[in-house]
């Protein structure tokens, strides 16, 4: 072990001396290798960034990896069972989907069916005061009203779905329920409220009266439909739990359950007991993402590998030329007792160090480039804001540099080890 350590140190010292003595050649090797290592770093960084962006998008629209989503249609019995089961549980949240119209009463909303504002899906409901809702008829006069999907939550949904805050604040679940339910709208709903000035009056089927909501914030939830988020207990003041499953508006209900929580088993058993139909899905975002990115990543890595190979050819060429120039030096080193293995080690140490230096430069350039892109394009591409250089790309760069060093230095190392010692005698 000690002998190995001595040889390793000797190889390192002599290798560094060789690099310092042949700066121009080392620079040429680095130049030929730089693009290859840079390509590997950029591909790996791009893949990591794409992974994160895609994962973040999947989590935004679905739920965080491992979450189980239990879905069902809203029926009075099922709703009661769900609310009872998830009550005060930190490992589950129930989300009830309702239709709500905000604006003038007795008018057809500008976006019937809570369609996106630049599309018209047709259909939709019109609710009359606190009475029943009916399909929006062609005869209903158009007016200043916006239809949204209303999501009422039993607890904070963000541990399960990381909604991105855009303005104002998120709902506070620790405080007493407000008489005027607080709403956080998504970007599409915010666009509608910015475009159409409507009275702050909200109508929901089954509500005891029209509600005056407070808008407290805007989030990005990845939904193309206008949507508003509200605390269920604040809504309950005006919409009793018994009326949540409104026969006119229908509605859907989802329960998000953390990985490993017993809620899933208990809830499905209870729902089965009352004959409620459910669908269950466990979010496996990483798997989904991998299948989407795998082929793309392979293609780019193959291209980067090809560029790296050209770099290896460059370092090999320079290495062979250098060994040819140093024949006497290597023969002399053998004469003073340097083993063949160490001579090979010296050449490999030089190419490995060159590979490492190149990797360091390529990583530095990539990190600086990413920072510049983040600063320049961060405003138009939000996912680029505060983007950190992925450590996986750094590791890939170092590995690429080392592999190129070994491949490019192997043949010159063999040549160096085979130089006959008698060269110094014949000189």
């Amino acid at each position, binding site marked *: 072990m000690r002998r190995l350590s001595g040889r390793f140190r*000797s190889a390192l010292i002599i290798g560094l001396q060789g690099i310092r003595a042949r700066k121009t050649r080392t620079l040429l090797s680095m130049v030929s290798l730089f693009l290859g290592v840079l390509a590997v770093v950029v591909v790996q960084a791009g893949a990591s960034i794409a992974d994160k962006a895609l994962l973040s998008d999947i989590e935004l629209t679905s739920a965080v990896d491992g979450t189980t989503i239990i879905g069902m249609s809203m029926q009075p019995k099922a709703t009661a069972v769900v609310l009872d089961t998830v009550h005060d549980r930190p490992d589950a949240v129930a989300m009830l989907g309702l239709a709500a119209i905000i604006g003038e009463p007795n008018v057809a909303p500008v976006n019937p069916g809570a369609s996106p504002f630049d599309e018209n899906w047709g259909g939709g409901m019109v609710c009359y005061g606190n009475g029943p809702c009916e399909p929006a008829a062609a005869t209903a006069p158009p007016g200043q009203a916006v239809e949204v999907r209303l999501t009422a939550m039993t607890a904070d949904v963000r541990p399960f779905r990381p909604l991105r805050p855009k303005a104002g604040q998120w709902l506070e679940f620790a405080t007493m329920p407000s008489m005027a339910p607080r709403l956080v709208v998504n970007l599409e709903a915010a666009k509608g409220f910015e475009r159409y000035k409507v009275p702050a009056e909200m109508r929901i089927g089954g509500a005891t009266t029209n509600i005056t909501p407070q808008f407290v914030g805007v989030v990005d939830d990845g939904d193309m439909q206008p949507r508003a988020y509200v605390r269920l207990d604040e809504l309950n003041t005006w919409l009793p739990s018994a009326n949540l499953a409104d026969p006119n508006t229908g509605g859907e209900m989802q329960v998000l359950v953390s990985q490993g929580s017993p809620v899933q088993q208990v809830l499905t058993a209870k729902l089965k007991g009352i004959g409620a139909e459910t669908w269950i899905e466990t979010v496996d975002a990483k798997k989904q993402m991998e299948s989407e990115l795998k082929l793309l990543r392979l293609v780019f890595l193959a291209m980067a590998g090809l560029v790296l190979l050209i770099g290896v050819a460059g370092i090999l060429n320079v290495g062979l030329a250098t060994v040819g120039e140093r024949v006497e030096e290597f023969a002399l080193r053998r004469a003073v007792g340097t083993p063949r293995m160490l001579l090979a080690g010296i050449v490999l140490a030089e190419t490995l160090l060159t590979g490492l230096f190149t990797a360091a430069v390529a990583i530095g350039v990539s990190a600086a480039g990413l920072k510049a892109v983040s600063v320049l394009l961060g405003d138009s591409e939000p996912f680029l804001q505060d983007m950190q250089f992925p450590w996986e790309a750094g590791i890939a760069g170092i590995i690429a540099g080392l592999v190129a060093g070994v491949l490019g230095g192997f043949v010159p190392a063999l040549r160096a080890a085979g130089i006959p010692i008698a060269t110094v005698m014949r000189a």
Partner: protein
Amino acid sequence: MTALIELTGITKVLKGQQQPRTILSGVDLAVQPGESVAIVGRSGSGKSTLLSILGLFDRPDEGSYLLDGRDISRLPERKAAKLRSSHFGFVFQRFFLLKHLTAAQNVSMALVNGQGWLPRRARRARVLQALEQVGIAHLAKNRPARMSGGEQQRVAIARALVREPKVLLADEPTGALDTETGTAVIDALLSATTRGCGLVLVTHDRDHAARMGRTLDLVDGVLTQRVNA
């Protein structure tokens, strides 16, 4: 007393040409510790081949080679490298100093050779001591380009002495130097014999050969004793 070096019936035939040529033919040679031996002969007489065999650069085709009484005629390369490091010091006609290294770094080359490890401070002390021995410690930080031929050869001698070898092999060490400088180099080599180091000097210079304890003539691959005048 066991001879430091004992060659018996060493034969070396140069193959790979049209006709094999015998370079050394049954050479016998014994060198005692502290003894200096000069080998003289015409160009192509086999002096350098003999030195190559002595220095374990090459192997004899026949005969035996004992070092301190141990047979090393058929030593594998790994063990030969170890012996070269621990027992031999080499001085060549061309000094073979690496131009990008200082005098001290050139001397240090013999210590940083993968045969054991010395910490930097101990290494530096050994290097300075070797340079001191040949009287050029003040040039430790100079590169070869800034030194005269004699100084460069002394650096090469210091490199050969730094591991305190048992045998010093010198192949025409004064060949590229003027008479005065050559004499100084021979002085430096002879000083090593005072501490028991054996010296084998291959030379064309009769005057330098005459300063050795013995002079041997190599004629057509056969070694014969010459009586120094």
